[in-house]
């Protein structure tokens, strides 16, 4: 009889141990196995200690040598005897503070998120795999290997990352690994390439071929008017009137491309792309500054995440002393300055992703028409591992143009995608930063950035020698007029890009007479540029405002530049309010039931200050106005893939043609005009204010910073801040100035200030995880500690010696 309790206890014990080792579901989330997660010696408790840094840490028996000194903001200053050693240390420190971020973002690019979070990421992974990030990354690595000197530097960086990974066991994994129950993988050059491809997707994966094709059909003869490629506000990156050193005969015919304009296709994205992203950079020469030193400013606008996309650091070797921000995952400083020069980047926005309609021979979809012949499709089988589910396979169909990305969106045809990352590069892209980081003058800057192939970027430049420059750098496909703006006929090889413009022919400017260069994602050039490029959906408000300010002032200081980066003036609001007042006169305003709001608009300075209520009123009103204007599209589910006209043209319509038929609402029997829509939008605003009152713009905007994996506890749910989309201080809800930098190049060395909305550590519990957010929010900047030797640091929190 004694055996019964023994057996019972044994079974109970096994059940208990099993229970501790399984993941438990909470809603659509899986919690990690409680046993190992709650274990005092290995679980999350140990993550409290990850931030503990010794005053001096020695890492012995390393192939690469050097020293990292972390200053009081946890910013590493790397001292090494050569660049390979420095990149090894950079890899190590990136991994030490941002390993999970590096790992997760490259797995995302590769289409491997289902492995971590389960079936809900399958569509995301499929799209990533079909777009061919992995193949492109593999090709890049093969190209890099052809440049052994450069590849050795990448390998040194990779070795540094792995040196840190090798030190880890479960107890000191970043907390996200423990929560999501997966483990770090060995870092490789391939993963660095994947990171580069991922950034290319963020910056040059925005195009509207499918939507514009549908819009062209819907709007018919009004299309060109509603979708101008160069709108009235445009003040291009390269000033109007610039002469181009480009022989038009060397380009393809500039006659209009034969578009087949086939509609009926749909885009299926697991995660819709954010619109309105952009960046600012500018440089002024000494003639326009108070201290007679050139100044360069940059604030790239990207989606906000924690950990931040940027990691700040300084690299000091015998041939360079460079400071700036880096991308954890690749070596070098991406935006920054050295003793001689400063540079910053914004997105050029050229359309380098085109779609081609594929005509199948039959329903089997195994042969497609190409130059009059039926060509066999190639296939690639993608096997997607799925957490807690069976592995799935996805057959990717490959055409001469590229992969079929979306299945079955059209009754008879499919779309193949061709984009720039599928073109093999001819150089080692990461060399750009190797060379740029040590450049001393404008010639070396121009030579360094030539290797930058995509995504097209506006590289602003200033030097101590008082040269300023701006190059729109990237491989620019040679296209016919309008080519790639719409879906193209994939049965005709003539619709392929005709190669790329020679590098020296892409738009650039050095030392313009106006004394400044600038970019804010507006069109690179005016319409006289001989090659066709399509600038996505960027808008011209910021560029126009920026150039107005830069032109007016001739005694710039760092402080004034700071105010310019933090400038909250909205040209969109100004033009829209002018259009309202054009339609409704003062007497009408005062007799209107909306008199209070309209008078507030009338007297508003169009500044999006967080403490003011008017920006919220305007924003809400504009949202209603816009939706009521384009109701014929927005209220029709069959038109979900029709591109909507932009804000500038919608406002222009209100000003110039308020009787335009698009103001008429499809849901009412009477005919509305622009003025009616203004008033109806005000009615809706009043109803909104009753239901959801708000005190000010900051409260209305509801800005936030999410954790990269959307773990709410690791993010910031609400930030009250000034600024907004289409404003120089472009802080919208979830994206904005991801790094603010101002550099004055004095004869005694660079003097720089900067800040970003995050912190150096990727450990959510660390005091360096989000320690800069509040200062960033309130418009504070930090003095960037550009040092020449360790003694110059104000305070060091830790020194890591690699012996």
């Amino acid at each position, binding site marked *: 009889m004694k055996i019964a*309790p023994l057996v019972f206890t044994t079974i109970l*014990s096994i059940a208990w141990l099993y229970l501790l080792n399984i993941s438990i579901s909470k809603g659509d989330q899986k919690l990690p196995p409680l046993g190992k997660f709650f*274990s*005092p010696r*290995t679980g999350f*408790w140990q993550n409290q200690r*990850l*931030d503990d840094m010794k005053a001096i840490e020695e890492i012995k028996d390393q192939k690469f040598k050097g020293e990292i000194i972390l200053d009081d903001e946890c910013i590493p200053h790397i001292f090494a005897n050569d660049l390979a050693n420095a990149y090894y240390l950079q890899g190590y420190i990136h991994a030490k503070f941002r390993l999970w971020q590096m790992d997760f973002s490259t797995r995302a690019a590769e289409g491997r998120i289902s492995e971590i979070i389960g079936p809900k990421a399958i569509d995301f992974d499929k799209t990533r795999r079909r777009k061919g990030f992995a193949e492109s990354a593999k090709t890049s690595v093969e190209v890099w290997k052809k440049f052994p000197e450069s590849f050795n530097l990448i390998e040194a960086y990779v070795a540094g990352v792995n040196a840190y990974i090798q030190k880890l066991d479960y107890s000191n994994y970043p907390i996200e690994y423990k929560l999501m129950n997966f483990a770090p993988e060995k870092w490789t050059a391939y993963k660095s390439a994947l990171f580069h491809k991922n950034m290319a997707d963020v910056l040059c994966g925005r195009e509207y071929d499918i939507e514009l094709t549908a819009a062209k059909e819907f709007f018919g003869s009004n299309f060109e008017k509603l979708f101008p490629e160069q709108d009235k506000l445009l003040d291009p990156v390269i000033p109007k009137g610039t002469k181009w050193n480009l022989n038009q005969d060397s380009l393809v015919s500039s006659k209009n491309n034969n578009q087949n304009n086939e509609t009926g296709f749909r885009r299926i994205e697991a995660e819709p792309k954010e619109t309105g992203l952009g960046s600012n950079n500018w440089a002024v020469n000494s003639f326009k500054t108070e201290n007679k030193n050139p100044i360069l400013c940059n604030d790239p606008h990207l989606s906000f995440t924690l950990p931040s996309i940027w990691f700040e650091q300084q690299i000091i070797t015998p041939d360079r002393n460079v400071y700036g921000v880096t991308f954890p995952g690749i070596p070098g400083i991406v935006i920054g300055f050295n003793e001689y020069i400063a540079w910053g980047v914004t997105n050029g926005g050229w359309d380098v992703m085109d779609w081609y309609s594929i005509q199948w021979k039959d329903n089997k979809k195994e042969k497609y028409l190409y130059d009059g012949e039926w060509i066999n499709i190639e296939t690639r089988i993608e096997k997607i591992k799925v957490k807690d589910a069976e592995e799935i396979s996805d057959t990717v169909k490959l055409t001469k143009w590229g992969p079929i990305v979306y299945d079955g969106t059209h009754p008879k045809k499919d779309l193949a995608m061709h984009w720039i990352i599928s073109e093999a590069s001819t150089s080692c892209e990461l060399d750009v930063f190797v060379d740029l980081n040590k450049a001393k003058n404008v010639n070396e800057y121009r030579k360094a950035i030539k290797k930058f192939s995509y995504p097209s970027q506006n590289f602003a430049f200033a030097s101590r020698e008082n040269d300023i420059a701006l190059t729109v750098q990237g491989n620019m496909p040679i296209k016919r007029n309008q080519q790639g703006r719409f879906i193209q006929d994939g049965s005709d090889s003539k619709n392929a890009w005709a190669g790329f413009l020679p590098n020296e022919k892409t738009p650039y400017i050095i030392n313009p007479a106006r004394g400044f260069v600038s970019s804010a994602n507006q069109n690179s050039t005016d319409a006289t540029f001989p090659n066709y490029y399509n600038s996505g959906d960027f808008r011209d408000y910021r560029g126009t405002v920026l150039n107005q300010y830069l032109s007016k002032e001739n005694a710039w200081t760092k402080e004034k530049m700071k105010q310019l980066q933090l400038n909250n003036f909205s040209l969109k609001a100004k033009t829209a309010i002018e259009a309202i007042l054009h339609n409704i006169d003062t007497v009408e305003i005062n007799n209107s039931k909306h008199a209070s709001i309209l008078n507030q608009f009338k007297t508003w300075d169009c500044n999006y200050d967080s403490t003011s209520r008017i920006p919220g009123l305007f924003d809400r009103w504009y949202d209603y106005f816009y939706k009521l204007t384009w109701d014929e599209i927005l209220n029709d589910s069959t038109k979900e893939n029709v591109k909507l006209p932009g804000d500038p043209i919608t406002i222009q319509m209100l000003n110039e043609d308020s009787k335009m038929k698009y103001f008429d609402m499809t849901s009412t029997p009477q005919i509305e005009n622009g003025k009616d829509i203004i008033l109806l939008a005000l009615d809706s605003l009043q109803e909104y204010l009753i239901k959801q009152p708000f005190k000010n713009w900051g409260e209305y905007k509801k800005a936030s910073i999410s954790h990269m994996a959307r773990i709410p506890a690791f993010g910031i749910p609400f930030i009250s801040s000034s600024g907004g989309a289409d404003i120089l201080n472009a802080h919208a809800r979830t994206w904005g100035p991801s790094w603010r930098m101002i550099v004055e190049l004095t004869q005694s060395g660079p003097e720089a200030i900067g800040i970003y909305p995050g912190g150096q550590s990727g450990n959510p*519990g*660390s005091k360096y995880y989000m320690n800069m957010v509040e200062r960033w929010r309130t418009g504070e900047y930090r003095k960037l500690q550009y040092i020449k030797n360790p003694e110059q640091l104000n305070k060091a929190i830790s020194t890591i010696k690699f012996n």
Partner: protein
Amino acid sequence: MKALFYTIAISISSLLINSENYGYIILFSLSLIFAFLFLEKSKTSFAIGFATVSAAWTIYLWYLSLTSTSNVVKMIGQIFQGLNEFNLIILSAFLGGITAGLGAYLGSKIKNFIYA
């Protein structure tokens, strides 16, 4: 006296176990072995195992929290239904305590079964 040996042995070992996947199995097994060696009555062995490891872990986790400036435990608490740091310590100690208690109970049961 033997119970004291058990208490010392299991409390020290429970704080030294550093295995990602087998930590609780090791804790259970050690508790079983130590109970087999040092404990007699199965009725009290569960209580001794539970109390010892719960107390050892509580003290250790309390010490970790007191000496850390990290916010990570508070953040984890938000993920687990808003549990505060104290509750997380209690929960962790409970998991360890039950494991050790079950190991001790089974160890003494086996001992009684063999030597009865």
